[in-house]
């Protein structure tokens, strides 16, 4: 392999997993001269870190760990899902994951027109994964009021009111999903 075939990241990763990186340094420098500086830096860090197992704690260790914990908690806190998270790219990813479904199914989900409780768990799980949220966050989002049709305010003399939510099965029927695909989706086999 030459340095043009491997990225710097891949070379450093491979170097890291050598049983004895110090012995491998010369070989790596020979094979990947373009990454020489990064390899030399890493060789030093490996040698240095290996000698630090018994290093004493720094005076600010407790505060530093507490800060890291706070950052971790902030990152782990469930993030609420919003309509903006259903970007065209995300909807495209959903379509790739559920090839039997037309776009309208996902826009209806985005507009919260579907009863969350009628959506199979496997589908909820995959949608949450694509949205990079917890299933609970997706469920909470879908349980919010459905979005009004943009034209609703202009066509009625009575105040606009969101339409009743429909079941996931009805949505699939309305969207023209075939019986076979519908059964597969509702069984949770896709």
């Amino acid at each position: 392999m030459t340095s043009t075939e491997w990225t710097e990241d891949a070379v450093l990763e491979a170097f890291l997993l050598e049983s004895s990186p110090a012995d491998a340094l010369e070989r790596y420098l020979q094979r990947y001269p373009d990454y020489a500086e990064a390899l030399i830096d890493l060789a030093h860090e490996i040698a240095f870190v290996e000698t630090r197992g018994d290093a004493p704690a720094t005076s600010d260790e407790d505060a530093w760990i507490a800060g890291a914990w706070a950052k971790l908690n902030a990152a782990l806190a469930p993030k609420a899902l919003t309509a903006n998270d259903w970007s065209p790219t995300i909807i495209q990813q959903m379509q790739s994951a559920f090839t039997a479904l037309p776009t309208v199914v996902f826009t209806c989900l985005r507009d919260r027109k579907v009863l969350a409780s009628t959506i199979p768990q496997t589908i909820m799980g995959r949608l949450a994964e694509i949205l990079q949220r917890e299933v609970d966050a997706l469920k909470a989002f879908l349980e919010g009021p459905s979005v009004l049709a943009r034209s609703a305010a202009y066509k009625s003399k009575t105040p606009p009111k969101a339409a009743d939510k429909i079941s996931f099965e009805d949505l699939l029927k309305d969207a023209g999903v075939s019986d076979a695909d519908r059964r597969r989706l509702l069984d949770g086999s896709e």
Partner: protein
Amino acid sequence: MEAQIAELMELSCEAQLERFRISDPKSPSYVRPECLVYFLRETARDNYEGHFRSLFDLVMARYGKPFRPAEVQREGKTLVDTALSEIRDRATQPFLEKIVADRQFRDGRLDIYEIAFAMAVARDRSDARRAVLRKVQREEPLYFESEDGREVTPAVEKALSDATISDLTTGTDVANDRKRVLTAIDALPEKYRKVATMRMNNLPFESSDPTCVSISGALNCTPKTARARAAEAERRIRVALGLAEQS
């Protein structure tokens, strides 16, 4: 590591934590950081937040060991090297992100810490240092602090007087000598650290064979420059080890 995990699995949470708190690698009861990472990841399954917090603190304490203190005492004054704390913060951030991704999606990027913890931390530290030093373009050395106040062994002193970095760790107390020299090298400015690292690995300054690795070739400088940098690196190491006066 599997044997150690199996042994620890037999213990209660409290007994496990007691073992995990042993930080001296020489202790027979010491638990390797790779095992700690394994148990940290397992807490995602048992959904016991208290245990996760305890393990997180212990893993972070191990993670923080290679990062030298940003604060040093000099003649009664506390000096703070912000680059050192920035390197630690920068290195920590991706590690935390990997822990988050692992808990949320069982992301595989944390695997390396469970296989070779020290190597993974070395990589994080290397990436962070490169990013920070690129930013500050510093020439000044990072603070060097002797941790144990030990005198340098005669073998180290002799090797230094011979001006060959690669021979610095040939004393009788090899592990400690090596540690002290590596700590001194770690505090060197980038250009000297690179040359010193290559000398530690016995690479020649130059080579007439273009297929052979040499310091001047790898660093894209002349052999004369490589030698000058090595001499300066050695001088600075001697100063750091207390073997020469600061000029």
